[in-house]
């Protein structure tokens, strides 16, 4: 199988080939020879060129949380066709959707439509888990739309603001 992947936001092309119970994984053409031993639920031991890696993988849609000894990695996978690498996704240039990271109540809407904002600037203040949480702009841009009002209860993942 071939995937267009990202790891911690870095793009890569990954191909998995299996033969004789072993795997060859090509990461941007670099071959890794891998033996896979399932251990606990969600966990496998990967033996790669004499090094062992205790790897936990939890898939949520296209996102995979991968826990290694060095920390947790965010990996996205999309099945790809053999051949040229898909053009890099446009996520970095289209409007940025600012979503509620958890369920809660909108306490204040700081940003207004049409306003210029800087990356890191507070857009919305949400109350969740007993704290006031500032939801910040992911990048420089202009507020295209505001979808919430003060006092409104929102679910996790609800679209709050569009920054273009």
């Amino acid at each position, binding site marked *: 199988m071939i995937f267009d992947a990202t790891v911690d936001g870095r793009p890569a092309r990954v191909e998995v080939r299996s033969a004789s119970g072993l795997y060859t994984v090509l990461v941007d053409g*670099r071959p890794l020879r891998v033996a896979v031993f399932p251990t606990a639920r969600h966990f496998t031991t990967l033996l790669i060129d004499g090094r062992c890696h205790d790897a936990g993988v939890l898939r949520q849609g296209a996102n*995979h949380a991968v826990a290694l000894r060095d920390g947790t990695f965010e990996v996205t996978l999309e099945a790809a066709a053999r051949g040229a690498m898909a053009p890099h996704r446009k996520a970095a240039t289209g409007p940025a959707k600012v979503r509620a990271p958890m369920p809660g109540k909108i306490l204040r809407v700081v940003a207004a439509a049409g306003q210029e904002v800087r990356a890191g600037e507070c857009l919305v203040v949400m109350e969740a888990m*007993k704290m006031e949480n500032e939801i910040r702009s992911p990048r420089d841009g202009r507020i295209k739309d505001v979808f919430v009002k003060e006092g409104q209860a929102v679910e996790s993942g609800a679209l709050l603001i569009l920054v273009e």
Partner: protein
Amino acid sequence: MTRTGPARHFKKILIANRGEIAVRIVRACREMDITPVAVFSEADAAALHVRLADEAYAIGNAPSRDSYLNVERVLAAVRASGAEAVHPGYGFLAENAAFAKACADAGLVFIGPRSETIALMGEKTSARRLAVEAGVPVVPGTMAALSDGATLRREAERIGFPVMLKAAAGGGGKGMRLVATPGELDPAAERARGEARSAFGDDRVYLEKAMIRPRHVEIQVMADAYGGAVHLFERECSIQRRHQKVIEESPSPAVTPELRERMGALALALVKRAGYLNAGTLEFLVDADRNPYFLEMNTRLQVEHPVTEMVTGVDLVKLQIRVAQGERLPFAQGDVRQSGHAIECRVYAEDPDNSFLPSPGIIHALRVPGGPGIRDDSGVYEGATVSIHYDPLVSKLVAHGADRDEALRRMRRAVAEYNVLGIKTTLPFFGRVLRHPAFVSGDYDTSFIETAFRDAPDTTERPWDVALAAAALHAHRERQKAVHAAESGSGGGSSWRASTWRSSGGRWP
């Protein structure tokens, strides 16, 4: 007053809390042959503290005000259980003087200070006045709580910016704001008062001069009902985000033997002055010239109490219970020593890469570290849900070593061993902090988190290829399994797993 044995021995204690601290108290009860009784909200029926207790009583809906903060419901559970004493843990009703009084009025023992002391220390400005009377230096600021904007502005100008705005009824960083310029005062006060109102039901605030890059050092104290009082040295709590501690250690790298002795003496002076009973903590700011200034007293067990337990060998929760039973402190000041070094990391369900926003959800996989010098005070288990309704503290990871270097190395190892899948946690962030030169040297202050990583994005080479391979293999094998299941119609056999060695010809990479 010459009695030395226990006045009584509790048979049953109700724990008016949840999460890791309720689990901690259950364990103390077990070791003392006391029956632990849990209470739980609708959201917590499957929580770890309920699983571990002997008896459990439902006390209401998920929101805290309907359950863990509801004095009537908690007291009804105490009556139903026949418990003689209540341990409030920290947070919720732990510093609620009315609850402590209601317990006493009902003939129950509240495991903590007297209700009058809680009220006195809980109102932060009266605590400041008492400290001044006891000869304890305080941070310059207002000595009374304020509720109107004009007075607030006038007092802020008098003290001089930057000022720290705090909730008079406060604690735990809630309702606290740093105000650098006069223009920020009004919006900050509005935010702080809103938070204080929802957290404490009291929106009065007070002002303190904001100190530049102070260290946050606190002294643990313990007092019995016969005038006996000891301090159990300091905890360094300068690693904070949003004015809430995330890493604590003892001893403090900034505290000299002379300063330790001085702060201990100041703490005991205030304890005596207040007629304090049971466990408490005095928080101080320490400036660059090592001058301590009293901030506030927390009249309860502290979240970070394990670091003190690890270096003194004193079980603070059991000692709280013994003191509440009417026993004398079993040791004097000269008998307690700091042995080695302990560090605690608070594992929060938060996303450290996204402003530490809460990350509730199901814990799909949980691997807890072990080995020499490691202690994990957890409130969860694999399969548990971190609820949106409560504080996102999942666990407290503590490392003890013969010295700071060994404790630090053990903590790094333990953080690497710790694996949580399903929610984001502060663990990866701890990995970075524990390697940061300022933390390693011990030369850090309360501005550490805000400044240490601001201009230096993490560029460490990480095993991205391995992570990619793990995810891609997972996807590939899930697909193979589905294909295999469809072909055999058996719901997915595992013969292909076991045959790896043979089919690879006895060679592994």
